[in-house]
């Protein structure tokens, strides 16, 4: 009986191809053309500005005036890059972006570290050590994510001034938060807190509760569990938080300009100065070079850790 069906099946198939093994797939099936076509078109949209930036930054001004934005440079020049980095003028300072770079780094590092440290502890407390009212504070925090920064500038300026005075009174030495890097760090911490806390809370909420209980039985306290158990586990979400904060803080202009002084202006402020200090014609090539230089740090971070980022998002962000 078995043989019969087998024969019945194979006999007519002698003429045709017997389906066997993997189904042959056409590379250029309509579905694939659609799929890759769409991705390609989308890629053009996303890449176009980067292309324009790079191409323009490598052209000389005369070429820019003549050609269109998309034509590749006839004569590649790195002049604009040099100028943007070291020579472009703002007011009477002609040292380009270089001045802002280290300032940005000096602002970035403590801001990222402190904001993430605080937010991760918040998220941890909110998910594993709930206390009466903790949810209320969290809700307020989330509302805070929606408040336009501009609205808060004025009161925060006053708050920082007062906080500085209070600290001065307590310590007896003159402490100024306003205008110091620490004021800016505080501001970044405050405004990074809602989203980061949400991120960490969701992540820690997804950590098996039994792990937490086991650690409690093992005699670990709030900080013991945080540092010894949770922190090592939360690497992906720390990567996400770090990327978000690095890009956010590095790209920040508003706080950087208000809460710092000229000698500590971050790179974005210098960028704004260069781009907006129009001397005669706009030097688009220098502007583009400056723009690229400013964006380089976050871009590198993204290119380097894109995979971890996606994994971290999957681990923490979408569970809320």
């Amino acid at each position, binding site marked *: 009986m078995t043989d019969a069906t087998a024969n019945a099946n194979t006999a007519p198939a002698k003429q045709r191809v017997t389906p066997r093994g993997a189904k042959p797939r056409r590379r250029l099936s309509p579905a694939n053309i659609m799929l890759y076509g769409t991705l390609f078109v989308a890629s053009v949209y996303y890449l176009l500005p980067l292309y324009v930036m790079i191409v323009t930054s490598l052209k000389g001004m005369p070429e820019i005036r003549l050609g269109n934005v998309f034509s590749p440079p006839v004569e590649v020049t790195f002049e604009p890059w040099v100028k943007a980095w070291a020579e472009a003028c703002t007011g009477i300072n002609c040292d380009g972006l270089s001045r802002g770079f280290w300032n940005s780094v000096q602002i970035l590092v403590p801001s990222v570290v402190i904001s993430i440290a605080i937010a991760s502890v918040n998220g941890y407390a909110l998910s594993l050590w709930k206390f009466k009212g903790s949810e209320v504070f969290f809700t307020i925090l989330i509302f805070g994510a929606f408040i336009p920064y501009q609205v808060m500038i004025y009161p925060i300026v006053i708050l920082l001034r007062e906080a500085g005075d209070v600290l001065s009174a307590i310590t007896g030495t003159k402490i100024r938060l306003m205008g110091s890097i620490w004021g800016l760090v505080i501001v970044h911490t405050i405004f990074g807190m809602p989203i980061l806390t949400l991120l960490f809370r969701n992540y820690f909420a997804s950590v098996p509760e*039994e792990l937490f209980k*086991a650690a409690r039985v093992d005699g670990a306290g709030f900080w013991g569990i945080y540092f010894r158990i949770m922190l090592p*586990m939360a690497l992906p979400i720390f990567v996400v938080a770090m990327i978000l904060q690095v890009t956010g803080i590095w790209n920040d202009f508003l706080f950087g300009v208000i809460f710092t002084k000229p000698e500590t202006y971050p790179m974005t402020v210098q960028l704004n100065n260069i781009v907006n200090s129009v001397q005669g014609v706009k030097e688009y090539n220098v502007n583009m070079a400056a723009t690229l230089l400013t964006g380089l740090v976050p871009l590198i971070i993204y290119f380097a850790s894109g995979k971890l980022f996606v994994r971290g998002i999957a681990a923490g962000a979408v569970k809320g």
Partner: protein
Amino acid sequence: MTNVTVKDLTLEFGAVRVLDKLNIEIEEGEFLVLLGASGCGKSTLLNCVAGLLDITDGEIHIGGRNVTWEEPSERGIGMVFQSYALYPQMTVEGNLSFGLKNARVPKAEIAERVARAAEILQIEPLLKRKPAALSGGQRQRVAIGRALVRDVDVFLFDEPLSNLDAKLRADLRVELKLLHQKLDNTMIYVTHDQVEAMTLADRIAIMRGGVVQQIASPSEVYNRPSNKYVAGFIGSPTINFFEGSITDGTAPEFLAADMKMPLAGYEASQGALSPRPAWLGVRPEAVITGTDVDKQPFTAEITVELFEAMGADTLVYTTLAGTPFRFRMSGQARVAAGDTLRIGFDPAQGSLFDKTTEERL
């Protein structure tokens, strides 16, 4: 000496009362199994004893001390969880020593205790590995080891074997039993697997809706369940219930549908059996087929409706006295659907429950 005492324990989550004035006393060195359906509050009780939940009312004493408000780590307990709850970033050794380090035990002693636990559990070769590189059974052993190194009096297990496959479960069950014999600690063990409960327990506490239904030795629970719920809960395949009544007369009989089942020799809880509506429970393995049938006080002819050959045994489904009826035969027996068989059992070896209170008679 009682080692763990739970007094009038009440626990509420918001408005929901999960545990209701619960009292249990556990002797030193006793192996108590908490058995019950999902959601009946077993884990909650265990967490209360461990101090991982703030109780609403009542007291908890461990080793003679009132520990109601003490931290979990101060109660002298070790706990093992269903999901193992190993610290994923630490090696096995790190997992074992974490609690001791927290308690600032001297390094040398930590090493010694870890070595001892590793030896007992035979996980020495694994000490340098991370939990991700362990199999389920090995992980569970490490989890037990974590409780072991702490040198505590009371071990709490929350379904420690549920995540393992059947074979491993059986093996670890035996190991646990041996471990208990060796250590002689007090153990409270939550499960909803009755085989585990039956084989491991010195006493089983059967819970339902936050209330303990019966707390007794496994054979007592199995053979003399205190109410219909316990009878139905314990035993696989499930006990058969006949609805009917106890008749008045010289020798008491149970009348189900048209069948008369003699109850001579039934050990009633309250002395004599008085006539009343009742349930009779008969376990599937109490039923006898083959040559010895006619020696049984009750016999009947049944038709096989369905059978499940499970290798060692065969389970036969039929109808008796108008209710579905299951019984067990040897795996070697040959039956087919539609066959007619003669079966017999002794109703007096079964259990009688009051129709309304469902309490054992």
